[in-house]
């Protein structure tokens, strides 16, 4: 059985270490787990290594590659770890020269040519990877007898040192056809705390700062209520009380009212006792839905508010009204659901004044609702709409170094604000960020 090794790189900077804290939850990357599940279902042997959790040294990784002898190594690559991915690939190629390396994930989707131009990268997969990596494995395993690289949509490769870019693959329209993620591909004994699941791809929103459209296209695709319920039930059976919370990582879980209503009906009908959290948008929530979600075990909801200035929100095409946001936050809080709110500083249309409006809004929400707050810096990732139009939007990037594109550092300035202005506002907001007490309390109820 041909083997494929799928790697998720370790976090790049110290500040992100809390994001991969195993005490709150062991959550190997859903992307490589999904690919591994799909490949195994089709007869391949995936080796899934999330280096955020499996903190093996590079020398240990090389030993593992030599031992397992995969025919392909896939790296999940983000803009901020692009250099790291190249560095690791170089080391792997030096130690195991015949190995083939494929880059996939957000950065290769947005900047495929930049990836394939590197000697150590043999293939690049753009957008969703399931079918593309499967066909690539078929091509590699058969020496291109069953399928040639040119016949694989979504693939970039080099033929005699010439880059060939195939047509894009169409999105998977029916996500119910995909297998439920096989958790056993990772270390099943380490699961606990909160566990991530994904029930849709893309986002119905069209906010200009977001990369979702560039990555997932202008379609919002969902798994049906039965599929979601079955995965939650499966996790409950597998891990029992070790799981404190299931985190639904979709950008807008409640975007389709009919789906969420039916999903809640299933939870009530089968009396599934599970705590869960999701992300959503203010404009698709209402009082009745929040009441039912609470009764169905929802303990927290994350809303992206992004700014405390209505004018800024309108320019960003965020599509939410701050008064409506306050109302929904109030109702969420009343239903004893922890409100997690995220904001960004440094939008192209921000000024010092609007960033301070955001800061005072954050302060108000913290004191009123003990909301869980997250503040990051607007970061135009290469290949996104915002990046391409940065000059027109009046944005100046202060660095070209991708490892600073982490959302944790201001890298944009305009005529209306500086890097220092953003730091000053963030400094003020720091004391309201990451308030975990309310969430843990509710989880215990």
């Amino acid at each position: 059985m041909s083997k494929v090794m799928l790697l998720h790189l370790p976090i790049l900077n110290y500040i992100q270490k809390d994001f991969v804290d195993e005490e709150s939850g062991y959550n190997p990357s859903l992307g490589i787990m999904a690919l591994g599940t799909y490949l195994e279902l089709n007869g391949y042997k995936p080796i899934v290594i999330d280096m955020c959790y499996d903190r093996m040294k590079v020398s240990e990784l090389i030993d593992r590659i030599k031992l397992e002898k995969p025919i392909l190594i896939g790296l999940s690559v983000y803009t901020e770890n692009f250099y790291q991915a190249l560095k690791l690939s170089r080391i792997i190629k030096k130690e195991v020269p015949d190995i083939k390396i494929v880059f996939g994930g957000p950065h290769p989707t947005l900047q495929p040519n930049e990836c394939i131009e590197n000697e150590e990268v043999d293939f690049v997969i753009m957008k969703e990877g399931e079918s593309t990596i499967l066909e690539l494995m078929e091509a590699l395993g058969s020496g291109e007898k069953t399928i040639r690289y040119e016949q694989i949509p979504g693939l970039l490769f080099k033929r005699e040192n010439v880059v060939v870019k195939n047509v894009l693959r169409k999105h998977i329209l029916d996500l119910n056809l995909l297998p439920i993620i096989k958790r056993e591909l990772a270390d099943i004994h380490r699961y606990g705390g909160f566990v991530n699941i994904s029930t849709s791809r893309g986002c119905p929103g069209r906010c200009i700062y977001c990369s979702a459209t560039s990555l997932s296209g202008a379609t919002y695709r969902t798994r049906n209520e039965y599929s979601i319920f079955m995965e939650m039930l499966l996790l409950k059976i597998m891990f029992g009380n070790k799981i404190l919370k299931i985190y639904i990582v979709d950008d807008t879980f409640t975007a389709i009212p009919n789906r969420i209503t039916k999903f809640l009906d299933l939870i009530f009908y089968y009396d599934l006792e599970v705590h869960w959290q999701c992300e959503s948008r203010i404009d698709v929530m209402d009082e009745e839905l929040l009441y039912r979600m609470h009764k169905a075990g929802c303990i927290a909801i994350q809303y992206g508010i992004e700014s405390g200035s209505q004018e800024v929100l309108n320019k960003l095409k965020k599509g939410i009204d701050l008064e409506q946001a306050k109302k929904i936050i109030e109702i969420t809080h009343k239903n004893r659901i922890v409100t997690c709110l995220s904001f960004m500083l440094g939008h192209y249309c921000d000024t010092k004044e609007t960033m301070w409006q955001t800061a005072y809004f954050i302060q108000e929400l913290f004191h009123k609702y003990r909301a869980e707050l997250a503040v990051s810096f607007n970061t135009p990732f290469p290949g996104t709409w915002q990046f391409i139009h940065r000059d027109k939007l009046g944005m100046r990037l202060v660095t070209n170094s991708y490892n600073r594109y982490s959302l944790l550092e201001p890298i944009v300035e305009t005529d209306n604000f500086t890097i220092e202005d953003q730091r000053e506002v963030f400094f003020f907001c720091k004391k309201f960020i990451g308030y975990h007490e309310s969430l843990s309390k509710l989880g215990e109820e």
Partner: protein
Amino acid sequence: MDMSKIPILKTIAWKVSDGYVVIDSYKGQLMLNETSSLIWKEIDGNKTIAKIIEELYEKYKDNNNKDYIEEIVYDAINEFEGYDLVMLNLEDDMDGWLQYE
């Protein structure tokens, strides 16, 4: 101190107030003096200590010799490290994340 190491900040909550860097660390707020502030602002996660020294020397060579610049950079980075505000990585270090444990 190894000049080829790259200092990396371990905090994002800092600001410049009247020319001085103020840091909100888990140990409390710290204010750096003018010289340390200059050095702090040079730390971008990409530059080696050697590069920081070189750049500061280019800016301030009229009034300072290189040995002096080297000394104050070493002292400041040592102090930042002592306060657990920076970590020092080698450029080719792929195992850096192991330090987060």
